[in-house]
């Protein structure tokens, strides 16, 4: 064996190990859904069953938590996407030290641990407005950092925007409102869709921030965590399996759309 083939063999083996490491745990979790053991495991194998999907379906608290998560997700889209859009529109037109400073403040929530985002929101809204934990605070706390993700998406798309289009429309007598509605907004529509999608996913998956501001409301991730600690059955695996299947579907669709968009809009750089 030459040195080159040995190195290629080693690289291949490492990659197989790495991707095996990424996917095997998820496979084990999925497989445990179909084991008719009362505790989720694959050893020992007690026989194939679909009963845990039924048990999940019958779980009222799961449906309630799902409803809460959907509500919070919708709220976060409604708050974070417009905020991110406004921030990107502002940054796109600033070229100075003010831009650098604003940018740093805007992305700072992404570099702050999620628990701290939750705690600061909780303390601030109780002290200043007397608002305690619940749906409202959960939406606000999540939006404070999800808006930064939305801002980054909008900013990336605005960088490829041909500003002469707006100037031409203004020269031809269009009002600012017309230019925004007829030119800027349509151009940003794909980014609005992907920002909404990302915002919902981030909200739906959030645990660390939500934990501090949820009050008595239970989102689906909070529900899953409490189930794992008390009253764990493979019904949690069934729920995980469904969520993972939906996530994979969403990720694949998102990637395909993103790549199609990237091909149609080659970067000018």
């Amino acid at each position: 064996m030459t040195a080159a083939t040995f190195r290629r063999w080693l690289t291949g083996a490492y990659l197989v190990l790495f991707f095996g490491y990424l996917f095997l745990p998820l496979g084990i979790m999925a497989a445990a859904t179909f084991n008719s053991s009362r505790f989720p495991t694959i050893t020992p194998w007690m026989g194939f069953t679909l009963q845990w999907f039924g048990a999940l379906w019958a779980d009222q608290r799961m449906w309630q938590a799902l409803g809460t998560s959907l509500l919070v997700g919708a709220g976060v889209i409604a708050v974070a996407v417009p905020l991110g859009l406004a921030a990107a529109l502002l940054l796109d037109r600033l070229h100075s030290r003010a831009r650098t400073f604003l940018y740093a403040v805007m992305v700072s929530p992404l570099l702050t641990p999620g628990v701290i985002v939750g705690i600061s929101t909780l303390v601030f809204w109780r002290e200043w407005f007397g608002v305690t934990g619940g749906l409202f605070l959960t939406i606000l706390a999540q939006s404070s950092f999800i808006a930064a993700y939305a801002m980054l998406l909008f900013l990336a798309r605005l960088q490829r925007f041909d500003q002469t289009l707006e100037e031409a429309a203004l020269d031809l007598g269009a009002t600012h409102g017309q230019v925004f509605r007829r030119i800027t907004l349509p151009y940003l529509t794909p980014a609005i869709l992907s920002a909404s999608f990302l915002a919902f996913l981030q909200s739906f998956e959030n645990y660390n921030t939500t934990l501090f501001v949820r009050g008595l409301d239970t989102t689906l991730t909070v529900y899953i965590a409490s189930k794992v600690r008390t009253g764990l059955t493979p019904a949690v695996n069934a729920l995980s399996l469904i969520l993972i299947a939906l996530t994979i579907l969403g990720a694949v669709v998102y990637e395909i759309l993103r790549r199609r968009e990237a091909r149609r809009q080659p970067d000018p750089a």
Partner: protein
Amino acid sequence: MGGVLRRYGPVLTAAILLAVAAWLLLLVVLPQLLMVDFSFRPSLPPSKARGPEDVYTLRNYATLWTNQIHLAIFLKTIWASSLVTAVTLAVCYPVAFYMAQVAPRRRLPLLVLMLVVPFWINELLRTFAWYIILAFNGPLNALLVGLGLYSEPQRLLGGDAGVIIGMVYVYILFMVFPLMNAMESLDRNQIEAARDLGAGWLRIHRRIVIPHAKPGIAVGCIMTFMLAAGSYAVPALLGGPQSRWFTEVIYNWFFEGGNWNQGAAYAFILLILCIAFILLMMRLFRVGLTDIAK
């Protein structure tokens, strides 16, 4: 500012400024400032708030030094998060290098997708997968006993080892993407040239790839460390009473101890830890804030 007004007109400009101000003031800056302010005040019943006893004090910060258990947990959170960061960096480096420099172009989209998919899956669910693997009657114990390494199953859950193993798995993808992005922009010809001039692979990495990938390494380390130090889900699921994480101590101050001021002080200490780590990385890799916040 004039540019903004010219482009969007007065109505839209006002709406934009209002939205940005609401976001940054009400949701980001003021809550952080108030949390810090709160952390320097004593915990008082509402009737005594803003009274003569409501003075600034360092007492909440002193607690961490006097409470040996909390201090030990805090120090463990630091070294364990550093360990998680170092392990993920070591594991991801070869993968990122392969994806960015070696992989054939036509195979790349599929490989990237295989990284993106687990990245999208909920942190909590990926932690739960390890809960099943590490369980007392779980597959890992079955394997260890089956291979004859142990004569009976071991307790893998509820200790620091389980938490660290879980964190490496859950946060590994936050390391691989920044590394990959940084290495992608390295011209392959540079590596070819170095090889032609007789440099071995170790020297190529030390003198060409690593210096080029510095910003990516810094970002990956910062993200991983921050997520690990600030993690609640992983220690809550995989740890136990003997392996508490600093975030769990903070949570208890809020919802079991009922001392929010004390909890706010601990939260601020955690934030300072993360900022210190960011500064350390910037110093270590000689990168600026603009390289990081891209």
